[in-house]
């Protein structure tokens, strides 16, 4: 039950929203894309991906529709809503501030 590089609490939402800014994707494609763009460092477990997507849908940040996948199978595609875009901006800002602060602390010279 290994979960490689467990995501920092709450960042999964941010990553999923960000990935969906480019184009509507189905769940499997999302997990692939995430792995690709992070250079294989970030990987979301299949187990936590779908509950997270359903939660985002429930919040109204993404919406789902059924359409044909590349290989012509019916698949559920998620895309970002207007509210989702705003939420992404907010979370990205938070993340930038937080990560800047953390790296600031880490780079601190030892006395």
């Amino acid at each position, binding site marked *: *039950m290994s979960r490689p590089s467990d995501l920092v609490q709450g960042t999964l939402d941010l990553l999923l929203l960000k990935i969906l800014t480019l184009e509507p994707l*189905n*769940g*499997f494609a999302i997990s*692939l894309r995430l792995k690709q763009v992070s250079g294989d460092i970030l990987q979301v*477990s*299949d*187990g936590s991906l*779908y*509950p*997270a997507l*359903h*939660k985002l*849908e*429930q*919040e*109204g940040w993404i*919406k789902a529709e*059924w359409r044909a*996948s590349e290989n012509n*199978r*019916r*698949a*559920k595609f998620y895309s970002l*809503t*207007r*509210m989702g875009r705003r939420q992404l901006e907010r979370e990205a800002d938070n993340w930038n501030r937080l990560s800047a602060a953390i790296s600031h602390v880490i780079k601190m010279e030892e006395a």
Partner: protein
Amino acid sequence: MRLERWFYSIPLRFRSLFRRNAVEHELDEELQFHLEQKTQHYVASGMTPEDARRRALRDIDGIELRKEECRDARRVSRIEDLAQDLRFSARTLRKTPGFTAAAVLTLALGIGANAAIFSVVNAVLLRSLPYPNSEQLLTLHSNQSLPDLEDIQKQTNSFAAIGGLTIQALDFTGQGDPVQIYGGLCNAEFFDALGFRPVIGRTISPVEDAYGGPSLVALTQGFWKRYFGGDAAILGKSIRLSGNSYTVIGVLPREFWMPGRPVDVLASLRVVSPLAAKSRGVHFLHTYFRLKPAISLARANVEMGNVDQWLALHYPEENTDNHRHLLPLRDAIVGDVRPELLVLFAAVGLVLLIACVNFASLQLARSATRQREIAIRTALGAPSWRLIRQMLTESVFLSLLGGVAGLVLAGLGVRLLMALKPAGLPRIADTSIDASVLSFTFALSLLTGIVFGLVPALSTTFFGLNAKLKEDTRTTAGGSSGYRLRKFLVVSEIALALILLISAGLMIRSFALLHRVDPGFRTENILTMRVELPEARYREQTKQRQFHREFLEALNAIPGAQAALVSELPMSGDYITHNFVIEGRPPLPAGREPEVQTRTVEGGYFRVMGIPLLAGRDFGSQDRTGSLHVVVVNRAFVAQYFPGQNPVGARVQWARSDPPDWMTIVGVVGDIKHFGPSEPEEPAVYDLYSQTAQQWKRWMYPTIRGAASAGILLEQVKQHLWAIDNQLPVTQVFTMNEVVAASLDHQRFNLTLLGIFAGVALALAVIGIYGVMSYAITQRTSEIGIRVALGAQQRDVLWMILGQGLRLTLLGGTLGIAASFVLTRYMSHLLFGITARDPRTFVFIPFALLAVALLACYVPARRAMSVDPMVALRYE
């Protein structure tokens, strides 16, 4: 922002809830798609299809678990839990139809009775009057004269409009038989005060509302529909009222309504009755004050106080002791009946409480039989809050069912109330099951279910369980807390029922005493009705007197009939008073003279009515128009003004008679209960139609004692009346017995309702005590078996059980008596002839209850007596 979120989430939730299958299917399809893709992905990287599939499944780490997490993300599980609880409740309740029926019926009785009484309270006390902005409408306690109203209008600043209205019987002819209708005589501002715009035409304008103004009339909706079929062409036409013609100028909306006073047409008081309108001393106008916006009642009353002083200063004769006090119109209309309706409401609340106690007790009894099930569910890991919730769901489910059944009962109950309706309850005709009654019933049901479901639910899960698992092998004498709780419930039930029974007992005693009151006159075989002579044709007293003579002659010519006339029929609610002075007594300032009841009679009234002559003589044939002006007084008059003296020969006259008109007292008659059996008689003076100077007394009640039945007699009377004048309507036809019975309508209404409530309460309490005793006996079967095996006689067993029931009853009874002692004084205004702590009632009723309760214990006790020790000991 929030709204936008709902825009997405609400349709999703509805989908999750109501299209569960579709949502489940989609979830499945989504995850299957993922699995296939992932498998292909692994195959592409060189795995065998089987390994790839296995790997993909492992990645997702339990597909069912993920599905559950997705469902949780959709956050509908709470509602689904509820649905599950409800389904489970429905199933268990269906499995115990006896219990379900008993519980629903018990609650339906309690809730239904409450909903019915609440709908009356709602119609009479709570609903606002049907006028625009009715909270601005005020009235004065006392009636006013038109000149005083005009001065109030000039001297004050608080009111947008001040209306005055008096109601007078009018004859409406020209549409077949002459009929008596009611005319509202008012000022022009009356329409502004009430705030009604006519549906067609217009109302009377201030210019037309003047002495000598045009004869105009506005019709009420009912009158318009009844006699003109709602024809708009009536505008501008004339109708004949009491011999005069009036031009119809408008029709009022259907909502126009005068509390307790039927009105058919409206006309200007100044036009129709200029003399009465001008007289400052005639206080006959009901008043309707409309406050200006933002003016308080207190401020208006301060102004009214100043007007009082001003009027007393300028018109002392007509304005002594005038304390004008404004109050909201609605309070004035419902004022008298508020306390008695509240007593009924409290009583019906007690019924509900008893029903609820029974309900709780039933649930306890059932949870006792379900303890094994509950123990198992607990052992399997159901958290106790989940069990409590399940039981609460069940109880609320039952109480809502009870509420629905109660509404059906309430519908019947309202019809019953309407059948009983006492004329004295204003606005009761508007009683209906409306939105507020529905919400009241719903809230009541919900509350009942929660409060009275919580007690048994808590007691079984928290207190009952451990004990249950331990004690289950041997059922011992009533030790469980559930049983103790049930005993407590029965005790409180008996106490509550006793309060209601004592209240009903007090009412019954009062009613019996009222019935036994001697009214002071004969009531059998006397027919009465009202006849009024229209002013147009009978203005002169000679014409009136000629009519009286001819009418009486014709009536007395009916075989076996004896007839007389009276101006104010006993117990009809009518009365007239006059200020008077006694010859030779020191003069009093104008307006301070004593007041007496004045009744005008003709033709042997005392003989017909059987009112005894106590001193002097009755009126006789020698007393005619122009002869010595004579009067007869009653015993109350003598007691008050001639105590210990003989009044015969003394002279009295109406205050400020001009010219002087002294009347000689020639006789004294007995008192009658003029104002109903519960009211004392007031000093009264009787004079004769043939001698009175009061030409405005154009109405009369013929009282006819006859051998024939009332129906035949009435036909004969009508024939004779219309032979004299075929334009005279006959109204208010009653036998004297009916008049007396009607005077008790109010008490009968209260008594009937309290009686029903007490009966229901008694039945519920008996069921309660029967239930708890039966339960106790099943619990003690083995103990009884042992006792019998050890040599106890059947009698001992019987007494043991009865003794237990007796203890509960005595405890409940004592509490009930104590509570009644405190509570019944709130109903003392409904009682007659006894106090709220009438000893006979307080002794008799508890004994009766005790007897009934023992009977309820006896039936299960008989069963206990016949316990076979062998069977009982094997019973476990």
